């Protein structure tokens, strides 16, 4: 029993982390219909800049702030220079953002050096405590909390404000939205910046979780994020949350009970979903 609870909590934490990673991607895809393969690049930049500030100042929160700011700035630049010319064309989006991914990943090495960097959780989140026989790792609880917070916040903004509507309309027919007097370019940029900031934030949160960050992790995690987004149903925020947790839990339990398959868990999950429920677990309406 304890074992199951402990596996579940850890799986949940992994799931939340994956959700944070996928959230920016889902946001950008769900709202703007942009397949952003540079997501991983934004993720690594968040991690490196955040960890850099964190190590420099010793203040974890400052590190998080730095990651978010980095995400916002990179998001703005990316949207303006890279994404703007290719709205509405998936294939071009995939291609151009892949190019950006290469640039961002390699630029990390120029700015921060090629070595991997280490990060530890801040003192107040370090270590673990026992609840009965269950070991609870503080940092993981923290991640679960942040995940829930981000989910709630984003859901609120999308559901309760007109922004979501405008952005979705803008994707379907940009000219028409402009003809209704809305500066859609500005809105798009803002959304993209938020999505990028989410990627950067998750990068920063990932750092103390795994202990190390390195330039190549971008592509690796971006692929994971994409898998989750596909499993959940492209563009569905709820779906991503659900799929991320599913992946986290499956990984945790498979690693314990069927270790032989643990390597292939994600791929098998995605294959199964694509075959049996090709629209993803949560189909976006429409």
């Amino acid at each position, binding site marked *: 029993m304890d*074992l199951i609870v*402990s*596996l579940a909590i*850890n*799986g949940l*934490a*992994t799931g939340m*982390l994956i959700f944070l990673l996928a959230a920016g991607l889902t946001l950008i895809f769900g709202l703007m219909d942009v397949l952003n393969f540079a997501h991983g690049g934004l993720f690594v930049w968040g991690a490196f800049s955040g960890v850099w500030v964190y190590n420099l100042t010793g203040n974890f929160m400052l590190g998080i702030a730095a990651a978010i700011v980095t995400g916002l700035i990179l998001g703005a630049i990316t949207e303006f220079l890279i994404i703007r010319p290719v709205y509405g064309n998936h294939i071009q989006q995939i291609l151009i953002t892949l190019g950006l991914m290469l640039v961002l990943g390699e630029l990390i*090495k120029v700015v921060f050096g*090629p*070595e*991997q*960097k*280490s990060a*530890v*959780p801040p003192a107040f989140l370090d*270590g*673990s405590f026992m609840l009965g026989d269950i*070991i609870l*790792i503080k*940092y993981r609880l923290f991640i679960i909390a942040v995940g829930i917070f981000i989910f709630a916040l984003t859901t609120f903004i999308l559901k309760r404000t007109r922004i979501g509507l405008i952005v979705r309309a803008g994707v379907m027919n940009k000219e028409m939205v402009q003809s209704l007097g809305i500066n859609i370019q500005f809105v798009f940029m803002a959304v993209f910046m938020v999505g990028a900031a989410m990627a950067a934030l998750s990068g920063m949160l*990932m750092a*103390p*979780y*795994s*202990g*190390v*960050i*390195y330039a*190549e*992790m971008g592509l*690796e995690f971006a692929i994971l994020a994409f898998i989750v987004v596909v499993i959940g149903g492209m563009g569905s925020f709820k779906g991503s949350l659900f799929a991320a947790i599913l992946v*986290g839990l499956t*990984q*945790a*339990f*498979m*690693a*314990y009970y069927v*270790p032989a398959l*643990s*390597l292939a868990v994600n791929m098998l999950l995605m294959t199964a979903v694509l075959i049996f429920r090709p629209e993803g677990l949560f189909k976006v309406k429409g």
Partner: protein
Amino acid sequence: DEDASGESEDSSNGSDTEGEETTETVKIGVLASLTGALEAYGKQTRKGFELGLDYATDGTMEVAGKKIEVVFEDTETDPKVARQKAIGLLEDENVDFLVGSSSSGDTLAVTPLAEEYETIMVVEPAVADSITGSEYNDYIFRTARNSSQDAVAAAASIADEGVKIATLAPDSAFGQDGVAAFKKAATDLGADITHEEYADPAATDFTANIQKIIEADPDYLFVVWAGANTPWNQIADMKLQDQGIDITTGAPDIAALSTMSPLVGMKGFTVYYHTLPDNEVNDWLVKEHKERFDGEVPDLFTPGGMSAAISIVEALKKAEGDASADKLIDTMEGMSFETPKGTMTFRPEDHQALQSLYAITLEEKEGFDYPVPVLERVLSPEETAPPIKN
């Protein structure tokens, strides 16, 4: 049967010579990952190799009356590129030696070329056993330690009669071979392997694996890990040490050591840390390295690069400048030479250099932002000798 074009004679000069002299030259082509995932290792090898030549030739870059030229090529940790660069070195540059490379895959893609071109290749720092094992050919010499040596060293540093050991390794050929070799060495020393745990090489969550290890309740947990996604944090978080399970593993390079702060107090082994060996060559290396590189100390694979260079110069000296492969193979088989890690010897049977490794404890030290390996004892070359061609 080769159709080498007549072109390759007028190849350009290597970067390290003035070039105009008419003295004969010996050319060495070094393959290393100067960019890409293993970039840090590749650069250590390069620094070590350059320093090694300086040291072995007293800064003259000459041996047995011949000028030494070096050409470095970047394999980008891509077997295709490695092979292409190797062909370039062999054909266009006409090198007399190959050295490299940072990844086992790159190396394996090149070793058949060494045989084909009858050119000596000094393998450094690739570790796969198969290089001097199943894929062995006569032209391959390895100054790097191989995986089995690591495993034997790891076993030697903890195994004893009746000790219970669990292992944790990535679920890959590297992890499985590492554990297999360790298991053999450890059981030879009387220990029991009570549990083998393999994790996804790209895993971020090791909870399930660690849980199982806790259940197996061993005295030691031996970890073989290579990726950047380290399990150390989680091992510490899950309080293995509090539950009477000591951790042991190979200490990595300095950048990766900094991720191991949760493991302070751990017993393990290492290939190299600059304070561990006690010999003149190492003293020179540390001093020169600091001077040339801004106070930086040599890292995990720097002495390997240096050893490779020294082995080549020594061999040429002994062969009196004869760079023909047959002569060199004769010379190098069984040859001993002094390196920053003490005396190394190329074992005649598989051309693997037997060498010292170091049993260590990780300790926290003032002024270091990483846990520092402190010497327990030197594991002698005989003690860490791996099985032949396994």
